């Protein structure tokens, strides 16, 4: 494969992973590493030079994805996806540089070489995202509604909500639930059969407090969340107080939707 040259071109994609893969396709076709690769939702005034909006074609995305799998593995292809979902600024260009090396590697071992800068950074970013996924396996808090739906608001740093589906589908297959990203305004909904993405229109939910409106809340809901708070307070051992460790493990930015932590003024 010929060398890729850097150019003052900017590629704009639709923000989806498929769209990103199509932008990668575009870059390969043009044999160029653009100076910017950004989603349309995050336009930048600083872009100079030519700007190209890349169209999303599912079959092109599929070709790139298959290419990644062929040159590495299924697991590595999902790692690329996971790192993409970090939404860290510049992650798209990092992934592009990584993919250029991956596609140019003659012996198919490149992706395992953590001594390489791009591989190393990609793995670090994916680790960060997966760490947050793991945290939210624990930090999701459902509230039951009067019609037996379980609703949980979250606002994670990374765009992880799709990565939560499998865990919660397996664990709570007998109840309907929604996990909703209030920052990115979409969620996943399980209807006792499948999980699908949803955007809520009719807001019976106060996204700031994360509460389901009281007229649609299940009768026992407040009782159980109060029990949980009491439990949380009761298990604390005063003599062992270690606030620093607690906030390391459960950073304050996650407290908003945790009933045991979010009461106003409760900053013990």
């Amino acid at each position, binding site marked *: 494969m010929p060398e890729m040259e850097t150019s003052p071109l900017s590629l704009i994609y639709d923000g989806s992973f498929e769209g990103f893969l199509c932008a990668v396709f575009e870059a390969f076709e043009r044999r160029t590493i653009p100076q910017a690769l950004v989603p349309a939702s995050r336009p930048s005034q600083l872009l100079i030079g030519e700007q190209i909006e890349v169209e999303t074609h599912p079959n092109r995305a599929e070709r790139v994805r298959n290419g990644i799998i062929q040159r590495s593995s299924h697991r590595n292809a999902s790692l690329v996806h996971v790192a993409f979902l970090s939404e860290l600024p510049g992650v798209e260009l990092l992934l592009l540089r990584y993919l250029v090396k991956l596609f140019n590697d003659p012996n198919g071992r490149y992706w395992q070489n953590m001594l390489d800068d791009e591989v190393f950074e990609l793995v670090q970013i994916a680790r960060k995202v997966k760490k947050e996924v793991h945290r939210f396996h624990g930090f999701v*808090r459902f509230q039951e509604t009067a019609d037996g739906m379980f609703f949980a608001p979250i606002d994670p740093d990374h765009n992880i909500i799709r990565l939560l589906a499998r865990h919660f589908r397996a664990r709570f297959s007998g109840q309907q639930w929604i996990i909703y990203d209030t920052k990115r305004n979409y969620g996943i909904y399980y209807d006792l059969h499948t999980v699908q993405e949803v955007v809520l229109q009719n807001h019976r939910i106060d996204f700031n407090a994360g509460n389901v409106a009281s007229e649609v809340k299940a009768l026992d809901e407040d009782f159980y969340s109060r029990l949980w708070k009491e*439990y949380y307070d009761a298990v604390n051992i005063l003599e*062992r107080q270690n606030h620093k460790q607690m906030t390391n493990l459960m950073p304050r930015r996650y407290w908003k939707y945790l009933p045991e932590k979010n009461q106003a003024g409760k900053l013990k």
Partner: protein
Amino acid sequence: MKEQVLKKLQVLADAAKYDVSCSSSGSTRPAQDGALGNAARAGVCHSFTQDGRCISLLKILYTNYCIYDCAYCINRRSNDLPRASFSVDELVDLTLSFYRRNYIEGLFLSSGVVVSPDHTMERLIAVARKLRSEHHFNGYIHMKAIPGSSAELVAEAGLWADRLSVNIEIPSENNLKLLAPEKDFSSVLSPMNQIHQGIELNKEERRKYRKAPRFAPAGQSTQLIVGASPESDFDILRLASGFYKQQNLKRVYYSGFVPVNPGDSRLPAIQKPPLVRENRLYQADWLMRFYQFRFDEILDDRHSFLDPNLDPKLAWALRNPSFFPVDLNAAPYEMILRVPGIGVRSAKLIIANRRFGSITFSHLKRMGVALNRARYFITCRELPLHLRDIDPVYLRRKLSPSVNPKVVQLNLFEHA
């Protein structure tokens, strides 16, 4: 009715909190479609207490009434405190409601001993049985095997629970007798051995019949209290090492003695729990479980207490300069594991990546190696800072945490 449950929860969660085990890992209890819950191999922490411990399970007592009068225990018979007992249904409802809201990973059920060990064990089993067979609950269940309860009951408990544990509490028989006159080692060791046999037998059975019901699939653990009695760290690690080898325990938990019963003359008069000592014991325990250290390498007759100022791996390295330097580009995994500042993850990374080229300091740094410690014990391509060229006494001072009066923890029994 609701207010009553709330009060019981406060009393019985408060009374259960001194059991430090929190793990919900090591079991894979698969989900069934339409049923509630599963258990994840890695375990999930759902919250963290103000003291920084993880909350993954609803850790609760069935009752805090107790016929025993153990000196170290808040729930002992002679204490005047609010007492309560849950009903089986209340505990089942609490567990399910918390679980459905994703507050918890499962249930940790313990109890004071009422009427008799068997009677108490039966109540605990009733809760787990109801959760599993009536409500198809597949979440994690950790149950206490009550010391002194009969073999049949322990056998049944293992069918419903993921993990069973019997607490040894005091690390030597003499002191256990002194502090808990109604208990002895055999009342703890016999259920422990029985659980161990049950697990081994079950493995055998499942090799023959894949569908044989599982017995305590997440294994068993125990807890001992550190600093309520005068045993040395050496004694404690020897005991723990025996548990890992002979009873194949998954975990030994070390609980720094919290003076809940001030005024009992059998106990040391301390103000604060020995948290530094507890931490060093956990570090030493990790060395035994994940770093292939034997207990008598970590400590010996001359050094019977862990150094509060040095982590035990570093202390071992300073006592064994001839082992170093370790060449990271050539040494086997087991040797790399012994380098202070290199953990299991970075040791594996080093092994996996050195086939791509020489590992350098900058690689090590981004792998997460603590170079400030490791650099004295390794060679890679950069110049070796050989331990033998440096005075271990100097290194010890340099690598100890800055002199902090809070770290110095006098051991009451050390010179007793």
